[in-house]
């Protein structure tokens, strides 16, 4: 079913709507903050949030926490991606294996990963190890699902031709499967990065002594709400930037393939 092309819309009009929307949201927020309708401090003035953000960005400790979270995300994402691609290829090579494993992988993929945190804390302790493991577990499933799907889309004629030239399994993987998997694997990795970030942040909220998630929940515990919103906004922005960077790298790799 072809998607109907959207009625042409002028870019200036889109920009105007977006600016108006941002302004309206800000106005509603400020009105709520000053109205006293919601429990004091839950909706602080945006100026307080901006001031809190400036304080955070000027604080050396903030960057230490960013570094800790970034390390946990990157290390976890790398481990999860490596495992996901490897297993995805292994399952894709044998249709029977994929059919056998599919229900369990899909079932686990649909499970909220945060509930694995107690198990990870038992296995890796309560420090960065369990947070990194959380990132790895979160990233693993979108990558393995996307990679296995990608394996199924590889043209079987190419594989048969390679086999007819006595290519080994490793050669077939390297020269046929891997190049074909770039696009689906990157799609999986983009999803995986997003959920890895969320998984690490939630793990830091539950039990940690450093990292952006820990900072946010500590501000909440002491009811420094403006500071909490500031940290969350910066975290959101970093997550969006990381996703955008992943997308740009992915698009580049796909174009170069």
């Amino acid at each position, binding site marked *: *079913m*072809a*998607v*109907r092309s*959207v*009625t042409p*819309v002028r870019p200036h*009009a*889109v920009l105007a*709507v*977006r600016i108006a*929307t941002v302004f309206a949201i800000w106005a509603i927020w400020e009105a709520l903050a000053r109205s006293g309708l919601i*429990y004091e401090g*839950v909706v602080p003035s945006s100026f307080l949030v901006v001031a809190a953000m400036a304080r955070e960005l000027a604080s050396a400790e903030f960057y230490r926490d960013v570094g800790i979270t970034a390390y946990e995300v990157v290390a976890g994402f790398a481990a999860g991606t490596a495992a996901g691609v490897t297993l995805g290829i292994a399952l894709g090579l044998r249709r*029977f*294996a*994929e*059919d*056998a*494993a*599919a*229900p*369990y*992988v*899909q*079932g*686990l993929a*649909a*499970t*909220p990963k*945060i*509930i*694995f*945190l*107690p*198990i990870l*804390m*038992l*296995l890796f302790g309560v420090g960065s190890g369990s947070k990194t493991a959380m990132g790895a577990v979160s990233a693993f499933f979108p990558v*393995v*699902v996307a990679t*296995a*799907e990608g394996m*199924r889309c590889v043209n079987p004629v190419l594989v048969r031709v390679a086999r007819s030239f006595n290519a080994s399994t490793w050669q077939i993987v390297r020269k046929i499967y891997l190049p074909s998997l770039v696009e689906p694997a990157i799609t999986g990795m983009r999803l995986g990065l*997003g959920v890895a*970030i*969320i998984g690490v*942040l*939630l793990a830091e909220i*539950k039990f940690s002594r450093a990292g952006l*998630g820990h900072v*946010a*929940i500590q501000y*909440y515990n002491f009811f420094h709400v403006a500071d909490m919103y500031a940290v*969350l906004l910066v*975290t*959101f922005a970093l*997550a*969006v930037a990381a*996703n955008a960077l992943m997308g740009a790298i992915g698009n580049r790799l796909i174009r170069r393939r």
Partner: protein
Amino acid sequence: MGTRIGCSWGPALAGLAGVAGVALALQAVVDTGLVSPFMISPPTKIAGAFGELVSGEGLGKAFLLTFGATFAASALATLVATPAGYLLYRCPLLGRSYESWIGALFSAPIVLLYPMFLVIFGRSVLVGIATGFLVGAVPIVLKTREGFLAAPPVLINVARSFGASDREVLRKVLLPAARPFIFTGVRLCLIYSMINIVGIEFLANLGGLGYLVGEMYDRYEIPAMYAATVCVILTSALFYVLSARVERWLSGR
């Protein structure tokens, strides 16, 4: 590894054998002392803990709480997000303006706002429902708009040429065309709502299946903790399968 639900017997048996093999291996490494039972509980003890979860820890009640919250959040999201998606379709300017923002919301960690919902709604199931609603509404809005956009223009033009009103075009052309997309959005809503609701139950000790896992860990009931985790996995898998079947049935596929 798409959405294939039914498996032939061979792979199904092989899968079960694989799970049994993993369980036996875990039992062996714990029994031989290679791994401490305080890190990995032997599967025999985990199996034994299910009974205690049901009879002594309110597993049934926890299950109903989580399920109920998920359905409530999804129902609310469907009621609000479907008309919102239609609005974004009817007004191309709004659609173009907000599509990328709504798409960005899909990967935003909205669940981090749960402390504020605790303050606004109190320590109640409403916290999970509110978060589940916000998270679940996003895919419905996106998929609904996508579905309406996918309606073949020729059918719309034919309907209009027969003098059909906007309402008739919506009812007889647009909705049937968009139906599979809308149900895909509702299915994604169910899954993501549940994931976030269980996560909040775990983080904020609010009751439900997520709370049960955390409670067993805190009380150092390790076999029961593993058993509760398995319950969550089985519930999520059941949800996934049921929602796929309902989607296929409603879509007529």
